[in-house]
C-alpha cells in the first residue's frame, strides 16, 4: 500500500497512455491539505462537547444561562467544583468505584485467562464446542438473566452489598476469554511443548510462560474491565441502596435528581468522574485499541 502512489504514476495504464498526473508537487500538497482539513473537521466535532463541558463547569451560574450560549467567560471560577464536592461525598464514591473496579480487574484477569488457556493451548475434545457456546452467550440479552439472578441474591439476603457485582467477575467473561484466546493462539506451540518435555505442569506453563508473554493482551483486558466496572450503571442501580455505598455513576445520578438544573456543578461532577478514565485511556491507549481490534469487542 505504501508504494501505491509511486506505482500508479510510473506504470503505464493498459491502453498505453501515461496516467494523468497533475502538477506533481502542487497536486500532492493540496491533497494533503484536504486530508488534514477533513481530519481537523472530524476532530473538532468530537472535541466540541468536551469544550462545552469544561467551559460550563468553570462558569458562574449567571453566565451559563446566557443567550446566545458561548464558550468563553468573563469570570472563570472553580465554584462549581466546590459545589459538587459539597453536594456529594465525592472521595467516598471515588473509593467505592475504585474498589469495585479493582476487584473486577483482578477477578477477570485470573478467571478469563485460565479459561482462554484451556481453549487455546490444551488440546481436548469438546473445546471447539465450548468456544462456540461461549461466543453464543455474548448474544444473550442480559435482561433475560437479570431478574432471576436478582431474585436469587435477594433470597440469600445479599442485595444491598457489593457481592452481586463482584462475585460474577471471578467466573470469566465471554468477551475477555475470546480476546485472550485469540492472543494466546499466537504464542508458539514449540515453547510449550519443550516445557512439557521438561516435565512442567499445565498450570506452571500457564503461569510462567503464557501469562508473561501475553502481557499486552492482559493490559488491554485490565483496562477494559476497569472501564466497564467504572461506568456500569444498571447493576449498581439495582443492587446498591445505601448512599454510603454509591458508585460515582449512581452518585452523579442522584446528584442530578436533586440539583437537576445546576448545570455548572453537574458538568464539574461529570468532569471529575470522567477524568480518571481519560487518564487511564491516554496511558494505555495502544494496548486498549489493539484489544478492540482483536475481537471486534464493544
Amino acid at each position, binding site marked *: *500500500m505504501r*508504494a*501505491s502512489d509511486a*506505482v*500508479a504514476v510510473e*506504470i503505464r495504464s*493498459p491502453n498505453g497512455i501515461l*496516467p494523468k498526473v497533475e502538477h506533481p508537487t502542487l497536486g500532492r500538497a493540496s491533497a*494533503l491539505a484536504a*486530508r488534514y482539513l*477533513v*481530519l481537523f473537521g*472530524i*476532530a473538532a466535532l*468530537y472535541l*466540541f*462537547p*468536551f469544550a*462545552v463541558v469544561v467551559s460550563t463547569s468553570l462558569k458562574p451560574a449567571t453566565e451559563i*444561562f*446566557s*443567550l*446566545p*450560549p458561548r464558550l468563553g467567560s468573563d469570570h472563570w471560577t472553580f465554584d462549581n467544583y466546590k459545589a459538587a464536592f459539597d453536594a456529594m461525598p465525592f472521595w467516598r464514591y471515588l473509593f467505592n468505584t475504585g474498589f469495585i473496579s479493582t476487584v473486577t480487574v483482578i477477578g477477570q484477569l485470573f*478467571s478469563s485467562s485460565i479459561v482462554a488457556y*484451556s*481453549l487455546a493451548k*490444551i488440546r*481436548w*475434545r469438546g473445546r471447539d464446542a*465450548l468456544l462456540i*457456546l461461549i461466543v453464543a452467550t455474548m*448474544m444473550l*440479552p442480559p*435482561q*433475560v438473566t437479570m*431478574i*432471576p439472578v436478582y*431474585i*436469587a441474591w*435477594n433470597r440469600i439476603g445479599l442485595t444491598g452489598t457489593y457481592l452481586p457485582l463482584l462475585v460474577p467477575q471471578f*467466573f*470469566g467473561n*465471554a468477551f475477555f*476469554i475470546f480476546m485472550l484466546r485469540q492472543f494466546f493462539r499466537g504464542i508458539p506451540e514449540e515453547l510449550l511443548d519443550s516445557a512439557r518435555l521438561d516435565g512442567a505442569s*499445565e498450570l506452571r506453563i500457564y503461569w510462567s510462560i503464557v501469562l508473561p508473554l501475553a502481557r499486552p493482551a492482559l493490559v488491554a483486558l485490565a483496562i477494559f474491565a476497569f472501564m466497564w466496572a467504572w*461506568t456500569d450503571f*444498571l447493576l449498581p442501580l439495582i443492587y446498591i441502596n445505601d448512599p454510603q455505598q454509591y458508585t460515582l455513576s449512581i452518585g452523579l*445520578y442522584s446528584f*442530578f435528581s*436533586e440539583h437537576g438544573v445546576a448545570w455548572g456543578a*453537574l*458538568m464539574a461532577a*461529570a*468532569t471529575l*468522574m*470522567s477524568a480518571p478514565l481519560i487518564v487511564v485511556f491516554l496511558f494505555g491507549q495502544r494496548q486498549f*485499541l489493539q484489544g478492540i*481490534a482483536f475481537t*471486534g469487542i464493544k
Partner: protein
Amino acid sequence: MAHRSVYRGLLFASPWIVGFLVFQLVPIIASAYYSFTNFNLFQDPQFVGLHNYQRLTSDDLFWKSLFNTVYLTVFGVPISLTAALIAALALNMRVRGQWFFRTVVFLPTVVPVVAATYIWRWLLNGQYGFVNEALAAAHLGQPLWLDDPPWTKPALILMSLWVTGSAMIVFLAALQDVPGIYYEAATIDGAGLWAKFRHITIPLISPVILFETIIAGIFTLQYFTQAYLLSQTRFNAASGGPENSLLVYGLYLFQQGFVNLNMGYASAMAWVLLFVALAGTLLLLRLSRNRVFYAGE
C-alpha cells in the same frame, strides 16, 4: 492420555462453565418459569399459565416500548455504523500525526455513560444548548429535542454518534487488512475513489460490517441507561420521556420488574426480547447471505 487431557481442559475451563451454569443457564430456566407466574418478590410465585403473555398483547406501553426500540435499531444502527465507517476511512488516510486524530475520535467512548448522557442533556437543551445554537447559525430549524416527542429518539441517535469509537476501531483494523495491491491494480485500471470503495473496500470488509451490525443491533435492543437518564425526572423515576417516546423496551422491563415488582410479567418481557433478538439475528444473517464476501471461500 486423551481422557486426561479432556479432564484437564475441563478443569481449566471450569470457572466459565460454573459461572455459565450459575449465572446464565439456571437463571434462563428460572426466567422461563417466572414468566408463567405472578411474583412480587415477597409472596411465593403463583402459577398463572400464559396469562402474562396474553396481557402483553393488550398492553399499549409494551407495544410502544417495542416500537421505540425497533425504531432505534432500524434507524440508529445503520446511521451510527455509517458514521463509524466514515470516521474509520478518514482515520485510515496516511498522514503524519494520525494517532492524534484516532485518539480524539475514540476519547468520547471512554467517558462514563452517566456523564456522557448528562453532557448531552445540556448540549441538547432547547434554549441554552449548543446544538441548537449551531443549527441556528446554519439557519436550520431548532427542535426542542428531549421535550418534543418526535425528536427524542433522533436526539438519542445523535448522541450515539459521539460514542462510535469501538465500531470505528474495528472498521479501521479491517481497512488496514485490505491488501494494498488491490487498490494499486484498480488505480491502474483507472478506477476512481468511489469505485474502489464500492468494489474493493466494501466487499472485503463486509464480514466485519455484518458482525458489527449484529453486535450493534443486539446492543440497541438492550438499550437502557441512556433512555433512563434522558427521561429521568426524579430519583428512581424515569418517566419514559414526553408521551413515552423514550420508553425503550429495556426501560419498560426495568419499570415492570424493579419499580412495580411485577417480576413474572418482566420475565415474560425478557423472553419476548430473547426471541426478537434471535429472529433479528437470523433475519440479518439470511439477508446478508449473498452480500457478504468471505475471502477464505
